[in-house]
């Protein structure tokens, strides 16, 4: 993955470049906003990491200009400006993510990996169960030709049930996959999310897909097909 780093703080840019190279990425950096815009428009990158407070050109203006030149490279803003209005503005202008400084290194790497995963698939991955289709890459869910909007956790839950279709999955397994946490057995977070998912996936359709297996967990039943 080739990353363009636009950061005016030389020391920070140096260490970020080093860390990304250690993680296996190819990095080009610049501390000048105008130069960075030129590079982004003329070369091909898989990801741009952009600071906002740049000399010469404001990061928001740079982003606006890139998008107006139809440069579709995914862009993550990394900035010490942490107000909601800055975050909202950045995302509205076309950034895919916004990381506040000082940031946790592992978190930056995790967010880069998410983008890498999306970029690396050439064909779409789909799981189809009966009349339900889940587009793994695009995170789209369609049932009976009707698109269903899910929250991030609802999508993860459905994807987990779908990947384990026709198998019973326990509450604990669901908690570990969806939330990567184990909660106290008295928690009903899984029940609540299953209910909310059922309201969107099963309610109003000809037949339910999600079933409860009392004492054991949940199961998504139906004829399964996977397209890679």
């Amino acid at each position: 993955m080739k990353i363009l780093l636009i950061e005016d703080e030389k020391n920070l840019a140096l260490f970020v470049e080093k860390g990304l190279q250690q993680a296996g990425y190819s990095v080009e950096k610049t501390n000048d906003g105008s130069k960075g815009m030129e590079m982004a428009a003329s070369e091909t990158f898989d990801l741009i990491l952009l600071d906002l407070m740049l000399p010469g050109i404001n990061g928001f203006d740079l982003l606006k200009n890139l998008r107006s030149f139809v440069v579709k490279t995914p862009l993550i803003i990394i900035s010490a400006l942490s107000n909601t209005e800055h975050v909202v503005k950045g995302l509205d202008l076309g950034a895919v993510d916004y990381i506040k400084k000082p940031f946790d290194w592992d978190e930056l790497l995790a967010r880069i990996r998410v983008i890498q995963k999306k970029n690396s698939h050439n064909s779409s991955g789909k799981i189809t169960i009966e009349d339900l289709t889940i587009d793994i890459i695009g995170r789209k869910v369609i049932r009976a030709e009707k698109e269903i909007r899910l929250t991030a956790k609802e999508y993860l839950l459905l994807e987990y049930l779908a990947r384990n279709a026709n198998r019973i999955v326990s509450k604990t397994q669901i908690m570990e996959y969806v939330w990567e946490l184990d909660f106290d057995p008295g928690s009903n977070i899984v029940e609540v999310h299953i209910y909310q998912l059922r309201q969107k996936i099963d309610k109003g359709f000809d037949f339910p897909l999600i079933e409860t297996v009392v004492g054991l967990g949940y199961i998504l039943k139906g004829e399964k097909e996977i397209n890679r």
Partner: protein
Amino acid sequence: MFQYKTLQAKACIYFASGFTLLWVICNIVLYYEFQKTIWDNFDKQMSTQASLILNSTSIDPRLVPLPQSGENFMIVYNDFYGTSDTLFVPPPELLNKLQLERHIHLEAEISEGKLSIIYSIPSDGIDKSIRKINYIFSLAFIVEIILAVVIGYWLSRKLIRPVKNVIELADSTDLQNNTLLLEEPKGKDELKDLIMSFNRMLLRIREQSDLQKTFFASASHELRTPLSIMQTRLQILLLDDETTAEAKKIYEEQLADVKRMVAMVNDFLLMSELQNGNMQVNKTECNLSDIITTIIARNKEQKNNRNLNFKISFIPSDGSFTVNADEDKLYMILHNLITNSLKYSPASSVIEILLQEIKKNHISICVKNDIREGITPKISMLKKSFYHSKPLKGEGSGLGLWIANKLSEISNFNLAVSIKDNTFEATLHLWNNCE
């Protein structure tokens, strides 16, 4: 009696009262003048009739005119020697009436001596007229009061309207969205002066607000950037295979210190922003479960180090747990509550988080934990800034609950804390005012 607080009501009352008082004074004077005129005319009439009767009376021959219908009189003759002789006296019942009713007393000199007459006629007609005038004045008074109130109300509304416009515009002033200045009226009166002063004040406030925003942006950048460099540098060095074990130990301690400093800088910057009233609220749909589980996931290390567990309950399980709120601020409030529970719970205990849909558009989030040994917080001090119940070594600035409370106020939420039987409870009430 209720109090009138508005200028318009006061102006209306003052006008109506003043007008009514003036009216009453004029009417009283008018009424007495009317009455006096009527009685004077009546007396003149009686005087004329009495004179006529005296002129028609003679002693020698004795001649006395008889009373006409309604007339009642008594004539007495006094000669020059003081002898008195009653020439005409009415019957006893009429004589009594003569003394009681309104009458006049006239005297006339004649060649034989002096004649005097006591004369009266019924005044029923006059009394009736005066009563009629009373009714008219009373009716006019009621009409006047109504008119005074109506005119007073209309006048005060007309006068106060420009002031109300200024108030409405002032209330709608939102410096975050660059509100327009007030439009100056054409006249050259005090109202124009008021609006011009207000506009100058708005400009000064906007200037200060812009300066503050610039300051916070700069302070944020200048403080956070070097910390970011240190944190990133240390994290990269820790991942570097060439770093020795001894060096890694030092870097880990330094990283922990840097992270603490980052947290403190964030708290202080936030505190300054809150104290300056500079915060904007940007509402979006927030999933409470996602926010809470994200916070827990980001503090997984502390959770696992102290062997803590979370019990998350939703009541009812088919309720709605999304709110329309500023996600950033909501995250900070819940982050403070949950990280406090991680710090102050005994090891290997369970922290309870209860999300309850109390009614439509009202959700509460309760974070409940036992208090670890040695910590004795004072409930009245918890929301005060810089209060540590017992300073945990190197942890926190003491601003957590203060910040959470202030952010709740800005977001129109309510944060309540309580301690009972060594259990700490923080409950955040959220109202879902969707626009």
